[in-house]
């Protein structure tokens, strides 16, 4: 029978528990490049168990591809557990620094205001520049960058990629 397949691309999140070994990151990222999966972000760090690392992965894909990605990850010997976070209540944050240049006095004032509204901090300042440090959701960070771009001439951005963990209580996202 002809099946209708939904090919809309959606953003999805995976928490991946892997062996803390040399080469595992290369193997996981190699899977994404080798099979042309659209990797948005990948972070990795150790956990309470020093033999286990945890990756937070964001991909943009359709339903069928996403199922395949999870299966392919599961197939790897070094992968201990694949947790799909897309539909679960989670806590997720991404660290980001933004330098803003060529600020006059009014510009600095505006930068402080924006930082306050976004619950971000100004952590460094120069004669005509300032630096924002924030840990927001990826989406919120995107919005902040978009806003800063329209308000100021030149900015410099570095972001850490998101880390996520399942919620303890189930009502917060």
């Amino acid at each position, binding site marked *: *029978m*002809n*099946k209708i*397949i939904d090919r809309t691309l959606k953003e999805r999140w995976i928490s991946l528990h*892997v*062996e803390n070994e*040399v*080469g595992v990151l*290369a*193997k996981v990222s*190699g*899977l994404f490049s*080798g099979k042309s999966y659209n990797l948005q972000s990948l972070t990795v760090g150790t956990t309470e168990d020093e033999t286990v690392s945890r990756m937070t992965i964001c991909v943009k894909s359709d339903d*069928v591809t996403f*199922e*395949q990605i999870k*299966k*392919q990850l*599961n*197939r*790897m*010997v*070094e*992968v*201990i557990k694949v947790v799909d976070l897309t539909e679960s209540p989670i806590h997720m944050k991404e660290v980001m620094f933004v330098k803003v240049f060529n600020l006059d006095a009014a510009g600095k004032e505006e930068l402080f205001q924006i930082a306050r509204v976004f619950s971000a901090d100004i952590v460094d300042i120069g004669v005509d520049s300032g630096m924002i440090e924030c840990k927001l959701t990826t989406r919120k960070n995107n919005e902040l960058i978009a806003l800063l771009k329209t308000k100021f001439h030149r900015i410099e951005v570095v972001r850490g990629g998101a880390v996520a963990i399942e919620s303890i209580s189930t009502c917060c996202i």
Partner: protein
Amino acid sequence: MNITGRKLFVKALNEEKVDTIFGYPGGMVTELFDELYKQNDIKIVLGRHEQGCIHEAEGYAKSSGKTGVVLVTSGPGATNIITGLADAYYDNVPLVCFTGQVSRNLIGNDAFQEVDIVGMTRSVTKYSFTVKDRDSLGKILKMAFYIARTGRPGPVLIDIPKDIQIAQGDPSYPEKVDIRGYKPNCSVHIGQLKKAYKLLKNAKKPLILAGGGVIVSGAQQEFREFVEKVNVPVVTTIMGKGVLPADHPLYVGNGGLHGKYASNLAISECDLLFSIGTRFNDRITGDLNEFAPKAKIVHIDVDTASISRNVVVDVPIVSDAKRALERLIQWAEPKKTTSWLKEIGIWNKEYPLEMRRDKGMTPQIIMEHINANFSDAIYVTDVGQHQMWATQFLKMNDGDKLITSGGLGTMGFGFPASIGAKLANPDKPVVCITGDGGFQMNIQEMATAITNSAPVIIVLLNNQYLGMVRQMQQLFYGKRYAATCLRKRITCPDDCKGPNEKCPPYTPDFIKLAESYGAKGIRVEKAEDINDALQIAKNNKSTPTVIEFVVSSDELVLPMVKNGKPVSEMILN
């Protein structure tokens, strides 16, 4: 008491009951070869090129069900086995390949014969690993064999630095391993299987599609019993060829790109496709939107990742083919499929697999003679037109086995694989069906066959072309035979339109070549001589026999589905 890494290496091979290693020495594995020299339980088969070694190990593994073992040196030795790893990966062959590596303190220095082989092979191995400390060696060796042969089998690469080979350490080889990230599935979901059987029971035009998974899991007997009990027609993939003899009343033929007309029509017309052990490769499905358009699809496969990957299925079942079939047999009741079988029979008569009978020594006639001359045989093919003809015309009676490179389509696979098969099955006739292109890709293994007493029979179909590509050029590229004529020399005219009396002679002379290695060579140019040549080869138990069949260049593999078209649209003549 501590022992060296090299001693533990040999101990591990003994514990795993390895009797043969296919290898090629070099600077970073001399320690291991030296340790192997001191014992008699494991035989070393010295290939003449590392690619030959790994294909030999594949042939050995595929024909015996054992795990093939390869031992090569670092650097070029390691890179030379990559094609074989990929081949084994796609065709699910259990292999454990050991590569030497420079000592740990030199890794990363671009040392002599150093390559990051683990990095290079990650995407074509089931597991690959560089041993980083002597005390983990035992556990890693155990893991390698366990991973290679369980679940969906595949190649594992273990890279052993030279200093670890000589370092003292833990003497023990573990009996068991527990890998938290690797738990091969060994049960079957009964509810899903019941659902699948119910669909089969209610279907009017059911069709079973059997792939290589049925053979890999050793389920031929169960498969046959099930099929005969339910009375449902069977189409196979290339890798599934041989699960039923070609003459079996329920066997339709191969499906897919060069499948039989009746098989592909049956796939397009069936209302239930009951597939076992196939990953629905594009060579089978053609245009996915038009694949089995009227059917519900059941898919049994040991690998979760193969299910609903290419084809969206109605009933997915993650299971080893054998386990699922054992259960299905218990429920199986005969179905009334007379009119459906009749329908398939009519298609079969409409376009049977048949080459013209007035064209002299066609590949079909050669295959028919092979069928008549051998039984209980192992057939090994290379890749190309001859491979398709073999899968179309070999009868595959009980006891026969077909070994071929299906997933990767590796030219150069056939001949070394046949040597491996012969070494694993010295009492069975092993017939390597190959072409003049593929045979030359690993022709140096003639020496391996001679020195290891592997009297394989090489059926060489010489059409003087890279025939499969030539066929595409003839049909789709205006007969522009770019780089496919193996006779073409620098002196040939640029606008050559095919063979004529001015063509230069073929090189090499395969008969002289065979003789120079100490093998027997027979050239056959007429159909009358086929039988005698096969008889001579069959009786030559001391050396390989090369039978060069000089066949026409313009024979095509038909039917043929054009790339990207539905399988029901075939080029028939």
